[in-house]
């Protein structure tokens, strides 16, 4: 494995290095990373990969792939040879950001006779300290032909990067839930939804009435138009806050409701400092005021879910101002902003 060069990406505050390894090393070190991810994208264009298979047999140079580490020990001053030895030691911690299908194809082809294991595979590595910035880069600078949808990308990061147990919350997928329900565990799809909304800085990221393709397009637009800010928190703060508040029954019950969770998460993008500093008791008091105001506000069932999402977002987004409101003032505020 060899690193040729590196540079510093000022926008995402990360080191980008470029290098190559042999197909043998790629199959040995990188293909296990794919099976590690629980997530499998459908072959989007079978013809394309059939072509690639044939080309590899014929000795083409594979389009380069991109790996990523969420890591802050590699910085602007790290020497190239240090990056090389870091990769040798820690490659298991990396994940494939772009090129899963190409590596899959490579693995398939390698089982054929006369496969050239010594051929080079070029790659980029991104070392970035924050997951959010990485996601931002993935979505804004898609280097694939047919980009993964933002939803897929979030799913992938969820599967690879977040250690929920360590962060202090229980997360279960639909499948695991079918086996055995853990009490007080969050729905994985709800957390994914919350993350997507967090990145898009908008609580509305799903709409059953709009077909997925068009919706993905809208989400990408929202994410791209959300400027990454340096002083902003990151999604880990949201998880940490949930972990902290969930000790009280009222709190976890409230947070487990998908619309609340999404509204709260996106609100934290703006108010992470104030909210992280709350005690579980203070948080409980806040949501009690919210609930009272919300039920007095009495939105029609026709838009109850949407309202819950938007108003919990509004409440936590402007928490520094709204935290001192009593139920009546909050109710007044809700009817003002909804113009109803």
């Amino acid at each position, binding site marked *: 494995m060899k690193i040729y060069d590196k540079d510093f990406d000022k926008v995402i505050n990360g080191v980008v290095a470029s290098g190559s390894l042999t197909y043998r090393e790629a199959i040995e070190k990188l293909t296990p990373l794919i099976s590690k991810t629980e997530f499998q994208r459908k072959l989007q264009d079978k013809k394309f990969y059939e072509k690639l298979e044939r080309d590899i047999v014929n000795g083409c140079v594979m389009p380069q792939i991109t790996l990523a580490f969420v890591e802050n020990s590699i910085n602007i001053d790290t020497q190239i040879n240090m990056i090389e030895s870091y990769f040798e030691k820690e490659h298991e911690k990396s994940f494939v950001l772009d090129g899963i299908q190409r590596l899959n194809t490579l693995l398939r082809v390698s089982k054929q006779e006369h496969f050239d294991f010594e051929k080079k595979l070029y790659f980029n590595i991104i070392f970035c300290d924050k997951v959010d910035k990485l996601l931002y880069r993935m979505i804004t600078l898609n280097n694939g032909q047919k980009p993964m949808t933002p939803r897929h990308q979030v799913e992938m990061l969820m599967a690879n990067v977040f250690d929920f147990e360590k962060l202090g919350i229980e997360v279960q997928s639909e499948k695991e839930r079918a086996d055995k329900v853990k009490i007080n565990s969050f729905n994985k799809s709800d957390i994914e939804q919350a993350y997507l909304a967090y990145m898009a800085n908008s609580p*509305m990221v799903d*709409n*059953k*009435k*709009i*077909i997925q393709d*068009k*919706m993905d*397009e*809208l989400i990408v*637009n929202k994410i791209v138009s959300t400027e990454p800010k340096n002083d902003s928190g990151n999604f880990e703060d949201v998880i940490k806050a949930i972990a902290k508040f969930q000790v009280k029954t009222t709190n976890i019950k409230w947070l487990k409701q998908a619309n609340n969770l999404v509204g709260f998460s996106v609100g934290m993008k703006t108010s992470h400092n104030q909210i992280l500093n709350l005690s579980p008791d203070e948080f409980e008091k806040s949501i009690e005021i919210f609930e009272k105001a919300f039920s007095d506000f009495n939105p*029609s*069932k*026709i*838009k*109850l*879910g*949407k309202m819950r999402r938007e108003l919990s977002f509004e409440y936590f987004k402007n928490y520094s101002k709204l935290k001192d409101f009593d139920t009546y003032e909050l109710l007044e505020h809700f009817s003002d902003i909804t*113009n*109803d």
Partner: protein
Amino acid sequence: MNCWNILVTLQMIDRYSILDPIARNNTKYKHLKTEENPSPILNIFRLISGTVNIKDNYIGTTYKIRDNNIKFPTEKNIKIKYETLLELFDENVTLADLNNFFLKARLNKKFYRSIEVELIKSLIAYKDEKYLESFIYLYRIIEGISYSIPLIFVSKKDDYNKTYHDMQSYFGKDKDGELQFFKRFVSETFKDEDFYKSNITIDLQLVDIEELRPKYYDLYLKKINERFILDKAENSYIKVKFIGYYDLLIELRNRFFHNLKGTWQENFESTELLFPDQFFKPITLHGINWLSIILFEIIKFDLQKIK
């Protein structure tokens, strides 16, 4: 019976009946059932969601309407059941709620009644692959609602103080008519909705005669304001912003249905289009979809006033 009598009898019975393929024998949600509930608001909802059969009592034909035009873009309902109706509403709404809504929905009956027949005509013509005819009825609906919908919407706001402002913004500065009034209303009211921010793809592949595609592609392009075009591929597709599509509908209608030579506008020559049904084929369904999305918002607005 003489001729006069036949005519009178025909007028007295409705030509079309709306049959409910979902609630055949189910009596539980009878206010959702078209045969039980005569409310035109229910009929409009069922027509635009593609969940009814229409019987032409005069000819005897039954049309299965399955294009779900509340979805964006239009999706075909493969299997229709109660859930098809439910999934178009907020997750908290139950069938019992819907049943109750449509029992009590009495607002704007005349308004809904006035578009019902036109909508049926448009959907049937579309089914019969008469795309130009379908377009004509679609256009008639748009003209018919362009003034009343904004008024209905504004008059039902809880805070009358705000309505003056709203009205003012719909009127704009010039005397530019009801269609522009309606456009401003749509822009102002729905600008934050996902459908408004999304776009419509005109698919030239729908034109069956391949040789006509380049011609039609150019003609469409000429009639769409450039700032509404998001993307295009020669003779293949044109991607238009939601609100720009409305302008296109109006423009196509104006250029096709007028033939004055003295004005600056370039009207279509019939020799240009050759097959008008083919010309309108990639246009009409998106138009019905566009209108249905707005109609559904109005229906929801009426329903949400029911407690």
